[in-house]
């Protein structure tokens, strides 16, 4: 085994990277699938409102609508605020 091969073999295998990426995207898309069509627009609107006050990136807000029973749905809003270094 050459020195180069030794370093190659210590690299993380691509199959586990694939699995992690898939688990995230599939969970995300399943969530979308079961949610109303207005949710993406709602998410953008909420983001715009928060941006008036705090400078945050697109992926720092996540909105999900979870149906807990036939009569009750819960809108969950998750905002990650940037570290306050000032």
């Amino acid at each position, binding site marked *: 085994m050459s020195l180069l091969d030794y370093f190659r073999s210590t690299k993380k*295998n*691509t*199959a*586990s990277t*694939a*699995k992690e*990426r*898939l*688990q995230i*995207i*599939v969970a995300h*898309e*399943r969530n979308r*699938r079961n949610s109303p069509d207005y949710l993406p627009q709602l998410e953008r609107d909420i983001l715009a409102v928060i941006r008036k006050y705090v400078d945050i990136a697109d992926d720092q807000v996540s909105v999900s609508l979870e149906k807990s029973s036939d009569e009750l749905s819960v809108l969950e809003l998750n905002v990650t605020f940037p570290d306050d270094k000032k």
Partner: protein
Amino acid sequence: MAKIIVVTSGKGGVGKTTSSAAIGTGIAMRGFKTVIIDFDIGLRNLDLIMGCERRVVYDFVNVINGEANLKQALIKDKRIDTLFILPASQTRDKDALSKEGVERILNELAEEFDYIICDSPAGIESGAMMALYFADEAVVVTNPEVSSVRDSDRILGMLSSKSRRAEQGLPGIKEHLLLTRYNPERVVKGEMLSVEDVGDILAIKLLGVIPESQAVLNASNSGTPVILDEESDAGQAYLDTVARLLGEDVPFRFLNVEKKGLLKRIFGG
């Protein structure tokens, strides 16, 4: 009453038609009267895989439009006498299928056949939706590769929301995972998603694992469903798959790297 099984995937080129041909042939070999319908309007290919491309006179769309009757359009397989093929139209566009038309033909077929296999086109447009709409069971063909797994998940979403069973509030379509082009050597090296990985993500029952095999191309070259090549690994894997589809409990094979003997190591093969 006939059982309607859709073979679907979302992504193209993963082995839907190969699997439809193999599974349909395998079921017919057990003595069940079986018809395989090509839903890929405009891109007919099942006829080539089954080796009956020169015998196509009328097609699925002709029957829906009343230009021919089923008896004229169905092609009887020359190898297995309980097997029939209904070819897709080559000239029409994919919107030529209407829900009412498809339903009428399926009802007519159901009177005579035990199993109806619907070979879905790729994508999530009308042809694919039509192929899955009336299904009782679905075989979701997936390659151990990111885009195929993601698309399969989308199709699973369609199966549970856009089918007749979903719309009428009936028990859902029974979903099966068929993993194709599986290469255990690459899985061991960490280069390919394993059966367990794909199973974890899609969370549906595993029906079969078809190894990546030379036999598949050889079979399509000659117009013979690969399941008839009973010597080959892929052929045997499809035989197991059909047995499971019919409710038998068969252990999985071809999941692990075949240990090579000394001679094979030296001379290859």
